[in-house]
């Protein structure tokens, strides 16, 4: 008899028996602890988010702060502009578009490059894995300001890559071969030299770099549980490495892959520093706008709150979509 089949149900059984062993005093203090825990979590985790929602319906007083109200003017402003129907603007919708565009592209880029890396990492010894994890966690936890600082030095026009391009003659070579014009078309060059700031490429690369360690960490559990004998079995049946990857590895990590992409997407929606440093002001995001309105020059807290709500709703919508996608999949069970 294995202990498990006999004892599977026991924790709850013993828990049910426990009251007999405790005095009513112990029961009451346990209850008090529960109440305190619930109150703490509700007050500190949920009330701030609830306030954002409530204030998004508030009204800004010109030249002062704001007041409680139940108005949709902030949402109206977001979707069609403050002076609608006289005139309409898609400025804020455009910002949301850029939020999503950066987030989607950067998340996909990170996941696509992190997947083979993570797979190779999990095939290494446990000690080597631990070293990699320390390295990845250290970069992952590193503040966005430092990472942007590093990329800024690499990409800025008077140091780093553009200078390196000019000094090594790469710029001239690009001009000779005609690639320079292609780069100009992509917005990666000014008349004299290549430039990466501001550009969408630099923004996406930095954002992708920012979440890349997250992608590895999130894919790590699924890939490390992948039974190596599966791939070996496929190999013995004559499958080539690429066929193995396509028919064995990819299908078995499909769900974590989708989940990871979604989480990175949600994370990237809130990116701020990388956008302000690397993106053209015409291509700024909702997150940047939230700063401007809540703490920046324009000071319109209710509108900032409304934008936060829309950001949150967008994130939730994508997560729900992901849930729906994974539930629809036949392999979900």
């Amino acid at each position, binding site marked *: *008899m*294995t*202990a498990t*089949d*006999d*004892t599977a*149900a*026991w924790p709850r*059984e*013993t828990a*049910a*028996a*426990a009251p*007999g*062993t405790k005095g009513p005093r112990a029961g009451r203090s346990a209850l008090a602890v529960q109440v305190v825990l619930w109150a703490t979590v509700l007050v500190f985790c949920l009330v701030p988010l609830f306030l954002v929602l409530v204030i998004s319906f508030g009204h800004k007083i010109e030249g002062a702060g704001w007041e409680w109200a139940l108005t949709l003017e902030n949402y109206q402003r977001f979707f069609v502009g403050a002076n609608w129907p006289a005139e309409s603007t898609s400025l804020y919708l455009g910002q949301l578009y850029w939020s999503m565009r950066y987030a989607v592209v950067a998340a996909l880029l990170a996941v696509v490059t992190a997947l083979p890396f993570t797979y190779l990492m999990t095939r290494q010894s446990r000690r080597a894995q631990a070293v990699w994890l320390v390295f990845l966690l250290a970069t992952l936890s590193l503040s966005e300001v430092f990472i942007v600082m590093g990329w800024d030095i690499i990409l800025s026009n008077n140091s780093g890559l553009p200078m390196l391009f000019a000094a090594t003659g790469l710029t001239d070579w690009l001009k000779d071969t005609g690639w320079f014009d292609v780069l100009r078309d992509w917005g990666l060059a000014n008349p004299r030299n290549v430039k990466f700031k501001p550009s969408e490429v630099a923004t996406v690369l930095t954002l992708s770099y920012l979440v890349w360690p997250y992608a590895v960490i999130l894919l790590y559990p699924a890939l490390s549980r992948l039974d190596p004998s599966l791939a070996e079995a496929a190999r013995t049946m004559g499958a080539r490495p690429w066929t193995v990857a396509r028919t064995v590895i990819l299908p078995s990590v499909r769900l974590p892959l989708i989940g990871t992409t979604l989480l990175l997407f949600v994370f990237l929606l809130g990116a701020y520093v990388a956008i302000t440093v690397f993106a053209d002001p015409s291509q700024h995001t909702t997150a940047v706008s939230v700063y401007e309105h809540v703490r920046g020059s324009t000071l319109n807290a209710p509108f900032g709150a409304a934008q936060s709500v829309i950001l949150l709703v967008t994130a939730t919508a994508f997560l729900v979509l992901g849930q729906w996608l994974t539930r629809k999949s036949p392999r979900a069970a």
Partner: protein
Amino acid sequence: MCALALKDIRKAYGDARAVDDVSIDFPQGELTALLGPSGCGKTTLLRMIAGLEVPTAGTITLGGRDITRLPAHSRKFGMVFQSFALFPHLSVRENVGYALTIAGTPRAEVMARADKLLDLVQLQGFADRRIGQLSGGQRQRVAIARALAQEPEVFLLDEPMSALDAKLREEMQVELRLLQQRLGITTIVVTHDQREAMTMADRIVVMSKGKVEQSGSPQQIYQWPATGFVAGFIGRANFMEGLAENGKIRVGDVLLTLPKPANFLNGAPVQLACRPEAIRLGTSEAANTVKGTITFVRDLGPVRDFHLDTPLGKLVAEQGADQGRNLKLGDTVPLSLPPEALRIYPRGIAESPMGMAAE
């Protein structure tokens, strides 16, 4: 005197009954083995005795006192777990002294007592080791010493040998039995290994599907299995299906005689069991003789098994190494099933022990 008694103990998970109205008395100072296949409820029963689970119904008494609802930490029962459950963050001595330490015993006294217990299980000099540095056998000794530290009224062991390799297991069975006899402590061992049960136990309780099939001394259980299940589970048995006919049993074309006429109605379906070592080969003058063809010979050294095709069906006969030396594969030999070696059980309906059971 009866130390521990279970009365109509039941454990139900939803509709399923893991333990179904079990009543057992555990005599003072004896070692009782709860024996049965996986999932028969023996571990659940042991956990209820330990106080780790509460029975759905029934009562457990210790020396006449009802302890059914007494939690585990208030019973003074020592228990050895299947995985030994030694605490990896404590040393060997701290593990053994755990019960005394948490009871507030002075440190010097705990250490002295732990060292004495380690002597008892022959682990002198291991007191300061970490659990991870011990072999399987050493871990088991630590687990035993730890369970004995609080001088338990009842000593419980849940599959204590299953984590050991076969050779070590047999040694530990003897050692544990000697230790138990020396301490004279009421002991209950849960096991699925009949050899283990027969080696150690004063008394064996055979369980199946949450019920007690039979309880008795190892010899009683082996010689007089109360049910077909026990006959099959304890040792080996050849089973034959037949019909009662005028106090005899018809199996196929053969009419088998019994030592005394069986109490079955004519035509009642019955099951016959016969131990392989009871079958005699090469003697044609005895009762219940048929001819069989040898289909396989399994030489185990001290004994040999002959697999035979007979009019009674396929049978296995066990012979000593010096018997039947000239028999070989393909030979047709007479074999006899001595009437006194035949055990008979009703078939098809709920078994109730017949006149041939224990006593």
